[in-house]
């Protein structure tokens, strides 16, 4: 009955997904340290703590990928040798990509509205968005399960309104994963995007329209390029967080949408095949770092991580 575990363990996996947030805080302190040497002394306890209780265990765990069951690269050969694990890796990227794209599409208008609203209203809306992040991830995911299932509220309503005859398949597939993850990721896209859009001088858009630009042109050639750093920052954060996601795909997806995070958990928790689990974790980590490096190279340090 190994699996009663899964209702618990995703919480740990999710709370472990602090990658982007940790990078955020870390890089933000670097310039400050250079300016004030005393800052280093202040940060030292946190750094030691991070090194001893985060970096070291991660390295020790990843080392198992080349030491278990025998020394060598057999775990990596297994990961890349057959179609199964490559397919899971591909799934991970597909889900991450779809979630990032949909999140960006939905977040942009909200961020725009937040930026141009009267401060009192935008503060209220902001509060609601942040409040959603305080609710337990597992509770929110289960709520989607109930809403999206065939006999759930959404299908019942659509059927009652005569919009559909047969219930839609909204859960246990990619659709369910996307809906559940986009909902959780939205704040991480909205917040950086709003910050960037707020800094855009509204006079620039006015000038564009005075110069004869249509609304579409003003959006494509003025607003979008100026908001790009925010989109990049939010997009990176959402994509990277999505790559390591565990709880939502486990509950709202089908097994054919399995992601790397699920593979790692399965290998480590149920099969105690730590070699393969560590290899999968290493691939995930390497891909994440690579993406981050590419992003910095192509777009400079994203806004908000400077």
């Amino acid at each position, binding site marked *: *009955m*190994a*699996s*009663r*575990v*899964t*209702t*618990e*363990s995703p919480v740990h996996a999710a709370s472990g997904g602090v990658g982007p947030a940790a990078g955020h805080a870390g890089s933000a302190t670097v310039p400050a340290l250079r300016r004030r040497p005393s800052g280093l002394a202040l940060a030292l306890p946190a750094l030691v703590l991070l090194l001893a209780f985060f970096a070291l265990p991660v390295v020790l765990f990843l080392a198992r990928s080349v030491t278990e069951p025998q020394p060598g690269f057999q775990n990596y050969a297994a990961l890349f040798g*057959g*179609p*199964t694990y490559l*397919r*899971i890796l591909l*799934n991970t990227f597909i889900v991450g990509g779809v979630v990032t794209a949909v999140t960006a599409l939905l977040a942009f208008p909200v961020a725009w509205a937040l930026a141009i609203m009267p401060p009192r209203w935008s503060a209220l809306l902001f509060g609601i968005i942040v409040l959603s992040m305080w609710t337990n991830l597992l509770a929110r995911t289960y709520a989607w*399960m109930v809403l999206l*299932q*065939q*006999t*759930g509220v959404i299908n019942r309503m659509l059927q009652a309104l005569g919009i559909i005859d047969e219930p839609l398949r909204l*859960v*246990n597939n990619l659709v369910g994963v996307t809906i559940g993850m986009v909902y959780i990721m939205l704040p991480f896209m909205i917040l950086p995007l709003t910050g960037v859009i707020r800094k855009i001088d509204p006079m620039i858009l006015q000038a564009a329209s005075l110069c004869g630009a249509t609304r579409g042109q003003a959006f494509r050639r003025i607003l979008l390029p100026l908001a790009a750093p925010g989109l990049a920052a939010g997009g990176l954060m959402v994509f990277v967080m999505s790559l390591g996601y565990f709880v939502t795909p*486990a*509950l709202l997806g*089908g*097994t*054919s949408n*399995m992601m790397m995070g699920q593979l790692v958990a*399965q290998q*480590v*928790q*149920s*099969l*105690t*095949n*730590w070699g393969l689990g560590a290899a999968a974790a290493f691939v995930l980590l390497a891909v994440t770092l690579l993406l981050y490096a590419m992003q910095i190279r192509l777009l400079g340090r994203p806004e908000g991580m400077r």
Partner: protein
Amino acid sequence: MKGYGLTAAVALALVATGAGAQGMVFTSWGGTTQDAQTKAWATPFTEATGIAVVQDGPTDYGKLRAMVEAGRVTWDVVDVEYDYALQACGQGLLEPLDFSVIDRRDLDPRFVSDCAVGSFYFSFVLGYNPANFPDARPASLADLFDTERFPGKRTFYQWAAPGVIEAALLADGVAPDDLYPLDLDRAFAKLDTIKDEIIWWSGGAQSQQLLASGEAPIGLFWNGRLAAIQADGLDVGIVWEQNITAADALVVPKGAPNREAAMQFIAHATSPEAQAEFAALTGYAPINLRSPDLMDPAIRATLPDMQTAMQINADLAYWGEHRDEIAARWYAWQAE
């Protein structure tokens, strides 16, 4: 977090009662099962012996292995799957049980081995929602795979464990006596015929939700979970024909800090009274052969041990030996 809270509470209690009080940690899967284990086993055990039992969980094989390898074991008794117990015993992760403390005479010999005794046993049974099948009722495992006569999604246990593979083979016409060694090619070929219609359940509560909501009107379930829905007043069909048994086990991790208390706890938990009480609470069957006589006949009638004539025992020793290779293939097939 719950574990830490309880640990703190027990630590305080130990301080309050002074020296001499002893404690131990019991780890299980959480949910209604662990609640019942607390009520039927741990509480009476503490009353009888004065040994405090701290509840922890959920069971995690990765954590168990890490504890033993690091030599820092914090769990004294753990509820695991029986086939895992056999495998872990072979890997040296478990203490041999002390059968001078644990009385094995009355225990069901199917569920007794060097490092493990049964915790309880259960059956995978075909369950269905009668509202979805007004004309014909499913009656056998073959019907579970018949999407023409019984259309709709079917739900199966997601993890590699005894049950679903056996069900696929039985539905395909393999005789119960010829099940082992498992013909995995044949089993997966049979499962392939309904793969698009499968929704996997990963925990008992989810399986109940899928069936009750009609999301998956038919499937293979732990019998106790169906009994619980019935007790809530919902109409559920249960087919005992070809029910497949498997078991959970109680084990002591190698190097457990309170080994003696752990043996006493297992002796108590497998006693006729404790097993009868747990069975009454959960709908799972007792592994102590004297327990059924202590139980209410009405409750007894709902337990898997009354269905032995139609019962197929999963070969847990076979699973213990081949667990890893079956699992590797199972998960690869799922992800395809």
